[in-house]
């Protein structure tokens, strides 16, 4: 076969608007354009699905947030109930703590009486609202102020302190004493004891 690459003769009427093909290297332009189009479509699809995914996740998270918020409010309500219960329990505790038995107090007052003194009337009334407050009314004869101090010392030793005291002395050595006794916690004493014990 011939090795000559001379173009085959052509005698047709020449068209004037014929342009030569573009250089092969420029084929990179449409190739890159096609690649970028395909990449743009692929990335758009990817972003579209990712956006859909994130929207779904957002909805899920929102519902989860709502659930958690409702759970939180429920928990807060429960906490409030528990706090109320706690408060009430503390009140009960305080009431119980304040409602000391009256027997030791009565015994303490009786034992504080001297030989010559005698109790004519002893009343111990606990305030319902404030159980740690006890209204004491004491009528005794003989002994006078000395006996009253001895009785108050005995009351103090039991952990009570007298407030709003009202004392009247009558004929024949009669003393009428009225006061409000308030229970004083002896915490320090207990702590000291526990500390001593630990030591």
């Amino acid at each position: 076969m011939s090795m000559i690459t001379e173009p085959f003769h052509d005698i047709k009427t020449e068209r004037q608007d014929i342009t030569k093909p573009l250089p092969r290297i420029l084929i990179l332009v449409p190739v890159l354009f096609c690649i970028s189009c395909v990449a743009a479509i692929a990335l758009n699809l990817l972003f579209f699905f990712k956006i859909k995914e994130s929207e779904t996740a957002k909805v899920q998270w929102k519902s989860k947030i709502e659930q958690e918020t409702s759970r939180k409010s429920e928990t807060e309500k429960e906490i409030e109930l528990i706090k109320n219960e706690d408060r009430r329990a503390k009140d009960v505790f305080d009431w119980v703590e304040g409602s000391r038995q009256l027997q030791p107090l009565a015994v303490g007052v009786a034992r504080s009486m001297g030989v010559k003194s005698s109790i004519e009337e002893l009343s111990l009334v606990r305030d319902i609202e404030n159980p740690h407050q006890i209204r004491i009314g004491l009528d005794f004869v003989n002994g006078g102020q000395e006996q009253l101090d001895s009785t108050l010392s005995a009351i103090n030793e039991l952990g009570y302190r007298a407030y709003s005291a009202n004392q009247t002395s009558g004929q024949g050595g009669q003393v009428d004493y009225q006061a409000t006794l308030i229970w004083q916690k002896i915490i320090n004493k207990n702590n000291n004891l526990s500390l001593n014990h630990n030591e």
Partner: protein
Amino acid sequence: MKLSDITNVLSFAAFRPDSDDSSCMWRKRFPNKQTLFLNFSKEIVSWRSVNKDGFLGDENSIAGPIKEVVEDMSADWMDLTDGGWCAVSINHRFVISLETNLTRKNGASELIRTNPKAVLGSKSERGKRYALKHNDESNSSILLAVDEDYIKEIETLFKSSGLNIGRICCGIYGMLAESLDQISEAQKDYKENGDEPLGNVILVTCCEGSVCILKSDQEKWTELRSRNSLYTQEDMGPLRKIMAPILEDHGANAQIVLNADKSAEGINEMLSELAPKVRINDISDSYGLWDLLKNK
């Protein structure tokens, strides 16, 4: 810049040659497309289609003038093509002559198509289309001249039938040029291998009733005779008459190179009778012209 320019770049069409671009090979102009090759003389039209894979179809032919055949067959031919594109080989109303001292400036082959006077000088005639084949070893050239009116007539005829002509060539001239290229290659091989030169070569080319006989002395072309619509398969007498005087005075170491299509069946025997002592080198191929149209 037009929008079509941009779309052509993006669709890669701008990187393919134009369908009308005669400087490009046919296959490159029509990749993956069906096209049609037509070869005709004064009395007969033959054609072959090329499918999308580039394979040639069966050869068909109809006797009759080109105008009537085109009018009858254009619809069938349209079905054999994508877009009606076809290449036309004419073997009628042409003259092939041997010329000397024609300019060989760069681009002369292209220039002769648009401005033949610039290449041929006073030898140029108005109303002719030309093609040129130079002898690389001497100052002689083979010149093809075809009537411009005839070409325009064919173009108008095909256009009116909806067919697009991508190439118009002269079949016998193409076969002649191809044979000369092959001979030239063979001579180069002989020289490189240190063999004896080919000697005097009488090149006989036949295509669709036309004949061209080129006689060469070593590598110089000395005589050329061409006739169009000279013979038919039934009447080979005129062919014998024109060949006889040339073959009579051949040199001692001459050989005949024959390149003929099937319209010249029996020419081999005729040459053997006319020059019994001369070696006949038959390079004919049934696909000869069709392969040229397809591959060039």
